């Protein structure tokens, strides 16, 4: 199954798992997707392999960045009217709090869906949604 087939399947069924399981790096991270009344979100289960600072301990900042980028891509794929394969142009990540090595969530929201470029904002949190551990905004090429 090609990535575009996976995108088509995900949009038909409303289940972004089809996309996540088609991308090897998402499988490597152990990334999962969920769905609630607000839409799709991504989650990264607790995994000692993802620790970047064993003394705190804390998740690696790059892993948090990867989760944010993944959640932005999933949001864009699931909410776009067209079947698209977003390419990341750039991402700006703000690290707000130390991310502990526990279950971490991220959810994106599309600020603007243009003809060629989409702007997406995304937040990651752990036990308390009101205390995000990181936030990002990213631009994607969608045509």
């Amino acid at each position: 199954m090609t990535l575009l087939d996976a995108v088509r399947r995900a949009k038909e069924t409303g289940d972004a798992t089809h996309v996540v399981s088609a991308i090897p790096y998402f499988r490597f991270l152990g990334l999962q997707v969920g769905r609630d009344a607000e839409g799709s979100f991504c989650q990264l289960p607790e995994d000692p392999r993802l620790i970047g600072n064993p003394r705190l301990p804390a998740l690696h900042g790059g892993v948090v960045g990867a989760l944010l980028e993944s959640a932005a891509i999933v949001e864009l794929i699931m909410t776009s009217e067209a079947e698209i394969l977003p390419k990341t142009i750039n991402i700006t990540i703000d690290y707000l709090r130390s991310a502990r090595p526990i279950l971490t969530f991220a959810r994106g929201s599309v600020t603007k869906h243009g003809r060629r470029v989409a702007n997406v904002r995304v937040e990651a949190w752990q036990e308390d949604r009101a205390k995000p551990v990181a936030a990002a905004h990213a631009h994607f090429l969608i045509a």
Partner: protein
Amino acid sequence: MSDTPPPGSFDPDGLDPAIIQAIVSGGIPHYGALGVQFVTAGRNAATLRLPYREDFIGDPETGTLHGGVITTLIDSVCGIAVFMAMGRLLPIATLDLRIDYLKPATAGLDVLAVAECYKVTRSIAFLRARAHHEGTPDDLIATCASTFMLGSSGEVPFPRNAKVPQ
């Protein structure tokens, strides 16, 4: 001989790159999971290598790496460049990271990430970083601008008992 020259000269009074090498090769679980390798570190700069692995693919049709793994490599090399610029290991935390993806990484090729810490104030370190394949340092995969907090409340990111070779 490596065709990527050290980005900064070694400062004999600064931090010994062997300490960094020991941290990269044994101290950080996620480095181990990725197989990140230490290449070189100088006065205010560092280089890391990410050996290509199919686990890291973002687009299964082309075999190109996912942006997230490039982000991780760049965040890592920036942190090391801060240590080199400070001349010591101290608790640091990434404040922000902006990454521009200039072109997809070529399937099958390792990625090198180079960071330079060009300014340090009492609280903040300012960095630029770039990623490219071996032998083509001008054909950039990604560029980055980032800032780090110095003396964050945390701990230096490696186990107290990390073995440093003499």
